[in-house]
């Protein structure tokens, strides 16, 4: 350090002051150097944890045959739920719940889209899911895709799906599907805002939806 060659001021108080100033300058330089390294390193590696990719990119087919992608949903928050039309309980309960929550939010209820993805392309054709989604009395974007497209979106959202025969004695017979029952809330930039759990109280779910459209 060049400062060390400077003539020393008078008295111990002045010396201490000078040492503090030097320490502060060293800390500042060190900090700047560290930030510089950090920045150049970050450019070459993955983004920071808060911005880890979740959800997209994905591409599915809507009930009307047009494409539904993370890009086509961008700009508006959305609540996305994965299920299948033959699901007799959790799917209608959840979609009915979303329709009700939307109603309770009043004007805010129309500031987000509701997306229903069928993870059962073997049985759910796009027009099947459209007819199903239309029964809930509120606009719902229904979509499905090929096995590969669904595998991709499931991976993006961390959605678990497993086919289970209804009758264990008939493994090739009718089946149901174990599947993730949470509702993922995605903001207008396609980032995860929150998840509504199946068991959660409506008041909590409403707070989360208000936060989503804020």
């Amino acid at each position: 350090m060049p400062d060390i060659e400077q003539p020393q001021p008078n008295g111990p108080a002045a010396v201490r002051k000078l040492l503090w100033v030097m320490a502060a300058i060293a800390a500042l330089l060190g900090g700047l150097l560290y930030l510089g390294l950090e920045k150049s390193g970050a450019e070459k590696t993955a983004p920071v944890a808060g911005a880890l990719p979740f959800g997209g990119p994905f591409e599915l087919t809507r009930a009307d045959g047009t494409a539904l992608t993370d890009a086509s949903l961008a700009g508006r928050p959305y609540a996305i739920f994965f299920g299948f039309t033959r699901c007799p309980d959790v799917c209608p309960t959840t979609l009915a719940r979303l329709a009700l929550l939307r109603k309770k939010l009043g004007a805010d209820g129309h500031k987000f889209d509701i997306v229903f993805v069928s993870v059962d392309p073997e049985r759910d054709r796009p027009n099947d899911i459209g007819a199903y989604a239309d029964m809930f009395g509120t606009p719902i974007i229904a979509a499905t895709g090929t096995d590969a497209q669904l595998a991709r979106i499931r991976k993006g959202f961390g959605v678990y799906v497993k086919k289970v025969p209804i009758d264990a004695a008939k493994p090739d017979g009718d089946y149901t599907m174990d599947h993730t029952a949470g509702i993922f809330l995605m903001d207008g930039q396609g980032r995860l805002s929150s998840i509504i759990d199946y068991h959660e109280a409506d008041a909590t779910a409403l707070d989360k939806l208000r936060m989503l459209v804020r």
Partner: protein
Amino acid sequence: MQFRFLIPITGLGLAMLAAPLVAQDAAKGNISISDPWTRETAASQTVGGGFMTIRNNGQSADRLLSIASSQAAEVQIHTMRVEAGVMKMRQVQGGIAIPAGKAVTLKPGATHIMFIGLKKPFKPGDMIPATLRFERAGSVKVRFAVQAIGTTSAAEAHHAGH
């Protein structure tokens, strides 16, 4: 045994005369069924859930063994749970116990019945006939009222039906 059955039957008979009975409620022996309901189904749906409250007014445990309906190829009893965020539905083997003096409610998000292989889609306002077979009470005929798909509880179904 036979004598024990007589009193509740008489009691229920009087209750039927005294109070306006909801059309779909049913009773036999010590077993009474209230609010049997199901949801409307989309054209592509081949299955539907069924819900109701089964009350055992007697002093001996009974058991719902099986269910049959002319509107479905098969009717099964299923459990439904959401575990670690994942919905799991499984067939119940051996029926459901209906303890003496207790009521068991089959409802969304819990144990329910499943109409499998629907003959035609369920439409709101339709009544779906079914026969419940109990170990002690024998066969009880019920009619499941088809409610809007957005119905999530018997209370809502009840309101919608009136």
